């Protein structure tokens, strides 16, 4: 009998319960269909002079307008990029472009402690470039509370006259925490006013990475009050390799690539017509079903939590208040939080090694009561950080202990899930936890 029951081949995954939609989503059929012509009969370069190319150009602009419309912006406000990472990097060039006539010798960049690696890395790169122009620059992190919400007092304290750039993700990619961006924007507005009255000319730019948000939140640029907003196709049922940066009026950026002057000269390179098309169609489709999906995923979350509570190791639900029965001390189902995106259900099993759970869940036949059970795919932390073997910054920032971090699973729902599948996944996760727990007891 094989030790590693190899029922599922990597290349033909037909049956599975996929619970990592925060990492990637399958392209929805409508988007796939809409993209197809731009790889075949509508292959033309949008910049070419003849009529069919002009039509492609117009289609591209049309899709861009439609995408922008979803967030209450105009097509011209969007720079289409190769994804959220590039959009985040492009956003941070505002620090350099906005600082050409910078009056101060030292500047500061504020980044929320739970940001994605691409934000931290872009902040460091911006710092290095500013310092190469002899301006001492500091990257400071803004604290979050135990649920991952921004600590507004800490933010106010750190928002001094040297701050040129603030980056706060609308939705955290590991916990699903939704940040109060309009409140943050209000605080920034007050600081801008103060600077104006004091005759201080240092610009103050607010950026938000909304990669995880577009599939369940209605986004309005004017309501959020941001200057720069990152969007990501791969998390909303669109193709990978496409993203967008909304650029507010008066915000100056520097290109990261130079060439034919596309995207207002800020992002040279032949336009990714198919990519933008798929992105727009997918985003539009999801935006039609926001309420229904939020309701559905909220139900999934509670159903999964109900199953996970049966684990021999008490689960710690992340991003929400954990509850216990007052008399027995037994864990109770937490109340859904308005501050957690409905498709996120992160959880920790302290004392259990979550990486081992991931590997076990690939092959339920190893541990499951039902040997024909489907594999369950979950994750730890953000995919890119996890693959480097790094401890999640986000989980450290919300004050988890090392044991709690090591036991943490990132679980996120999406279009591939059903309520039955979620319940089954919950049972399998509990069985995997039990399998590991028993192994540890025997050592």
């Amino acid at each position, binding site marked *: 009998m094989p030790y590693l029951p190899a029922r599922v081949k990597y290349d033909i995954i037909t049956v599975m319960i996929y619970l990592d939609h925060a990492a990637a989503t399958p392209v929805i059929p409508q988007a796939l269909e809409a993209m197809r012509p731009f790889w075949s009969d509508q292959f033309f370069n949008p910049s070419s002079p003849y009529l069919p190319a002009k039509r492609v150009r117009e289609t591209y602009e049309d899709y861009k307008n439609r995408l922008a419309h979803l967030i209450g912006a105009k097509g011209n406000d969007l720079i289409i990029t190769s994804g959220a990472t590039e959009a985040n990097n492009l956003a941070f060039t505002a620090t350099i472009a906005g600082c050409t006539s910078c009056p101060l010798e030292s500047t500061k960049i504020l980044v929320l402690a739970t940001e994605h690696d691409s934000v931290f890395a872009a902040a460091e790169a911006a710092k290095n470039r500013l310092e190469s122009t002899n301006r001492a620059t500091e990257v400071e992190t803004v604290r979050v509370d135990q649920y991952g919400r921004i600590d507004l007092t800490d933010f106010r304290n750190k928002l001094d006259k040297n701050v040129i750039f603030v980056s706060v993700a609308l939705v955290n990619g590991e916990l699903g925490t939704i940040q109060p961006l309009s409140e943050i924007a209000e605080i920034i507005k007050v600081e801008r006013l103060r600077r104006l009255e004091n005759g201080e000319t240092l610009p103050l730019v607010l950026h938000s990475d909304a990669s995880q948000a577009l599939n369940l939140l209605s986004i309005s640029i004017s309501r959020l009050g941001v200057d720069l907003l990152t969007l990501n196709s791969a998390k909303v049922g669109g193709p990978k390799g496409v993203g967008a940066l909304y650029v507010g009026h008066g915000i100056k950026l520097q290109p990261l690539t130079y060439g034919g002057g596309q995207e207002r000269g800020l992002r040279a390179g032949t336009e990714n017509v198919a990519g933008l098309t798929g992105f727009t169609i997918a985003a539009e489709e999801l935006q039609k079903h926001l309420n229904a999906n939020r309701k559905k995923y909220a139900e999934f979350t509670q159903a999964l939590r109900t199953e996970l509570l049966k684990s021999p190791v008490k689960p710690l639900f992340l991003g929400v208040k954990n509850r216990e029965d007052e008399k027995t001390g037994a864990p109770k189902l937490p109340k859904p939080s308005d501050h957690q995106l409905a498709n996120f259900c992160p959880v920790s099993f302290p004392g259990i090694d979550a990486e081992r759970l991931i*590997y076990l869940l690939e092959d339920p036949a190893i541990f499951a009561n039902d040997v024909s059970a489907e594999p369950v795919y979950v994750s730890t932390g953000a995919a890119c950080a996890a693959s480097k073997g790094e401890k999640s910054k986000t989980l450290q920032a919300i004050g988890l202990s090392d044991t709690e971090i090591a036991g943490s699973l990132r679980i996120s729902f999406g279009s591939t899930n059903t309520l039955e599948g979620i319940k089954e996944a919950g049972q399998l996760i509990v069985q995997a936890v039990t399998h590991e727990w028993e192994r540890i007891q025997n050592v």
Partner: protein
Amino acid sequence: MSKTVFLGMSGGVDSSLSAILLKEQGYNVVGVYMKNWSRDLPGMKCPWAEDLADAKRVATKLGIDFHVFDFETEYKQKVVDYMLAEFKKGRTPNPDIMCNQEVKFKLFYDVAREQGADLIATGHYAQNDGKNLLKAVDENKDQTYFLYRISEDAIAHTLFPIGHLTKPEVKKLAAEKGLDNAYKKESMGVCFVGEVGMKDFLKEYFPVTPGDIIDEDTGEKVGTHEGAIFYTIGQRSGLNLGGGLPYYVTRKDMPRNLLYVSRNLNARELWTRELELEDVIIRGEAPIKLNVRLRHRAPLIPATFDGQKLTFAQEIKRPAAGQSAVFYDDDICIGGGIIK
């Protein structure tokens, strides 16, 4: 009570199958990933995290314990620093041999014993009869060349679970055990021993210092090199000396940063009948007549050894100083030494 074996797991098929075989033999197996190097190099992502994940996946599915031993500091001191010092002297060391001597069969062995191991195991192609280090059954894969410097104590306490198998047998067995699903490729081990190549690695530590390439036969300058430290005696490629017959590196003058080359494959500097050795290790009685391997996978050459000097019946191509000559008595790897 079954014996506890700490098995070095790299994520590759050899050590993964070793885990399965040991478990089948009834050992209490503990998987260990030795983290020796994690720094990315220019143009080369160090695969350590992926290798670790592959190893941990196999261990998890087998239901065995798994640990990461962080040996980065010691690896840097004992292997990398030694290697750099040797190159600086103009020699060509073998970091794998040093890694086995100092890290895998010393440090790992010691820590494993401290943590309760009765035995250690690795996925090397080698065998052992409880006392002697023996060649692997698969002559083509035999790795005893890299293991000749490990201690007698370590040999006596090490299992080589796949040493009696050929590589095709390993692959077949691995597939039968369902392992084909759990890993995708051979683990490469430390990055700079892999595809990046030693020269690129050395450039991280030593500046490019142009020097003359001199034709051994004419005494004339035939080109410019990037620093004698980056070249090895006997090396043929990478000299950028244009067309025609290839040049071979015959000598290095480290103080003057000169590289001597020859187009003559029969150049006296390239051949020898004798090799002087240092740091010789011999397990048991040293026979006067033995077989010598001068490179991994190279054929065995009969020679006599007087305690310092190897003498061959015919001229052999001279290996670079710093490389190892490994001794065999029949199938037993009895030791070896480092070429002066």
